[in-house]
């Protein structure tokens, strides 16, 4: 990856920094858009208008919300451990944003030069995704425990159990994809689905894996119907009961970034990533469109499904998804060896 001549290491680092800033800035802008989209769509699903007061057709509502959250006091209960409570939202955001780095938006050189349209192309891409997904649960557990409230504590325990259970299923569901592509790098996985390789999106041969990934992905991001860690009817707000102000907002932002990450990984692993008709320069457009479809799906499900019970969640995770994912990996392995 030699850019502009002389010293490749320095140039690459510079480019990496620019990429990191661009990704972070873009995602920060996308989160309010998704927030608005969700509220508008939920409104439509539920026979109401959704936000329509701030700005034209309510377009500025997320900014008003963020402004409100920023200007609010970050209260801390007397029973809390303040520094832990403060650090939990940070972990939440950092782990979510870090995962974004590996989502490929286009091949190397799509926009000229040697520039790859992704943060980094790590050879252990999927492991990187799992690693940060696992780290994210520290945010919930720390935040919930350090709040010093029983509701937060219960929410934290729930999220710990939920994330660990579904981490296993999500890992096995992607193993089939990794075996077919012969690589853990997301860029290689996308390329394996292109015309150069077999030319088929992995959603077809890995359909079972795709379903498991989507179900587990909902659980990973704690979205309905798997929003048990913050199930409002039972635990008030779960792990973030005691949070207020922008710390509370950070948890929400992390959740939305997590949704984007899951959508991005699903796009790369199952829907052929940047592959689509038209010139190669359009690659990011296809990725964004596919991710957008996933985000819509997340919102649609939220409006439709009730919440699972804790034991049903565990049952689904360990007794349904895990054996299914294992079977999927076994069948994939056998087929790969035979053909």
């Amino acid at each position: 990856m030699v850019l502009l001549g002389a010293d490749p290491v320095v140039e690459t680092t510079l480019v990496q920094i620019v990429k990191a800033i661009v990704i972070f800035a873009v995602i920060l802008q996308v989160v309010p858009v998704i927030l608005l989209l969700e509220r508008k769509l939920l409104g439509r699903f539920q026979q109401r208008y959704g936000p329509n007061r701030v700005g034209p057709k309510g377009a500025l509502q997320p900014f008003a919300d963020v402004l409100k959250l920023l200007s609010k006091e970050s209260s801390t209960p007397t029973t809390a451990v303040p520094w832990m409570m403060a650090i939990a939202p940070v972990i939440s955001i950092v782990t979510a944003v870090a995962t974004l780095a590996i989502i490929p938006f286009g091949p190397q050189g799509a926009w000229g030069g040697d520039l790859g349209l992704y943060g980094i192309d790590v050879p252990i891409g999927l492991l990187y995704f799992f690693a940060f997904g696992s780290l994210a649960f520290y945010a919930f557990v720390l935040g919930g425990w350090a709040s010093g409230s029983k509701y937060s504590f219960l929410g934290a325990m729930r999220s710990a159990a939920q994330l660990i259970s579904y981490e296993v299923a999500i890992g096995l569901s992607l193993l089939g994809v990794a075996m077919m592509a012969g690589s853990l790098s997301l860029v290689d996985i996308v390329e394996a689905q292109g015309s150069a390789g077999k030319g088929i999106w992995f959603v077809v041969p890995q359909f079972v894996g795709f379903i498991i990934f989507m179900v587990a992905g909902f659980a990973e991001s704690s979205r309905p119907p798997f929003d048990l860690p913050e199930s409002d009817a039972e635990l008030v707000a779960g792990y973030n009961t005691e949070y207020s102000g922008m710390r509370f907002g950070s948890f929400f932002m992390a959740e939305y970034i997590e949704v984007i990450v899951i959508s991005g990984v699903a796009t790369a692993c199952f829907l052929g990533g940047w592959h689509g008709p038209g010139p190669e320069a359009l690659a990011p457009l296809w990725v964004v469109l596919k991710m957008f479809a996933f985000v819509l799906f997340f919102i649609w499900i939220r409006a439709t499904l009730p919440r699972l019970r804790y034991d049903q969640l565990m049952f689904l995770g360990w007794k349904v998804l895990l054996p299914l994912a294992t079977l999927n990996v076994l069948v994939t392995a056998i087929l790969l060896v035979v053909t």
Partner: protein
Amino acid sequence: MTDGGLDTPGESQSGARRTDGPAALLPPYREREESISLGTLDEQPVSGTEVDIDGGPDRETELMTINLGPHHPATHGVLRLLCTLEGEVVRDIKPLIGYVHTGIEKSCEDQEYWKAITFVERMDYLAYYFNAQVYCMSVETLLEEEVPPRAQYLRVIHMELNRIASHLFWLGTAALDIGAITMLWWALRERDLMLDLFEMSSGQRLHTRYFQVGGVFEDIPPGWEAKCRRALEVMPARLDQYEALLDENEIWLQRMKNTGIVAREELLALGVTGPLLRATGEPWDLRKAMPYSSYGDFQFRIPVGTVGDNYDRYRVRLAEIRESLKIVEQALDGLPEGPFITSNRKVALPPRHELATSMEALIHHFKLVTEGFRVPPGEAYSAIESPRGELGCYVLADGSAKPSRVHMRDPSFVNLQSLKAMGENSLIADFIACIAMLDPILGGIDR
């Protein structure tokens, strides 16, 4: 940064511990408040109340007391529940009520009979027509006053519409507690159809004070019947929509079926009535058992369940909406002509136009408005089937124009007793579903 976290004073530790004897069953109020904190989790659990569950002396269990309410999203008002949890399992439930005690029953003693209607309507605030009806029935019994047939039919129509509105609100909030957020707005959309009708007939959407002693306040305006029929036409399709959203949803079925089962005998022993009892297969409905207000004229069925789980409770209420639609339709078809309120001028106000021509009417009007009507001494109890069960009203009259005592047997209050039987030893999520399916109205419980 100062370490403000883990230094909860230790002196409350002994106080929050449960000791033997009934007096020490609940620690003093302040200490109970403190026991909510998790402050000294790493040393000694302040909050842990040690209750022997299965009698196993060697079983080291740490229980957590959690304060559900009065401000909790799922307690449907200001119900406060002290729950003892073992992990996610609810081991003990203590409902604490009284957070919305308004003293309505006592206030009624200071009002003339016709003014008290406004008060009683505000008890069970989702079933205001029923409160007014049962109170008026008791007063009418004492007065030996006949209600004209048209008024009886109008009462039935409004009560059944109210039952539908109440069940719809229950459906929306109950589904919200299970996590199906969309259901709330769908149910409220149809509830608005009912409220529009109430607004048209009485000028108010809630607490209409439409029922009077001896009849109803006004005849229904022109166009009301057509509007009501339009609402009746819409409803079945909308109910099908709800069923498509909920009944064909595997998660909803799994959450509902075989949860919160209480045996019929136990419910009967607790005095539970209404959809909760009917869900166990007991066809007890006062509209059939002791017909009042012309309910005998209508053809309708009593939906009953089989198992008595949360799913049956849900199905029974949904079927009741369909039956109520039938009753309203029949009542509209057979709505008799005639007066809408009794012609007894001692009880009901004379028509406005008579005041200009009749001295008698003017005197009656003046007497009724200034001091109300006198009720002969005696006592009366009447009971009707409200959306939540048997709603009874006891009125004691001492011969004056004000009741000596008004007491309501509110179904929410009695039904709340079964919460322990429903929710004990179940997961928190099921327990919340049980509260939702119980359909408690705190305004009725506390009165």
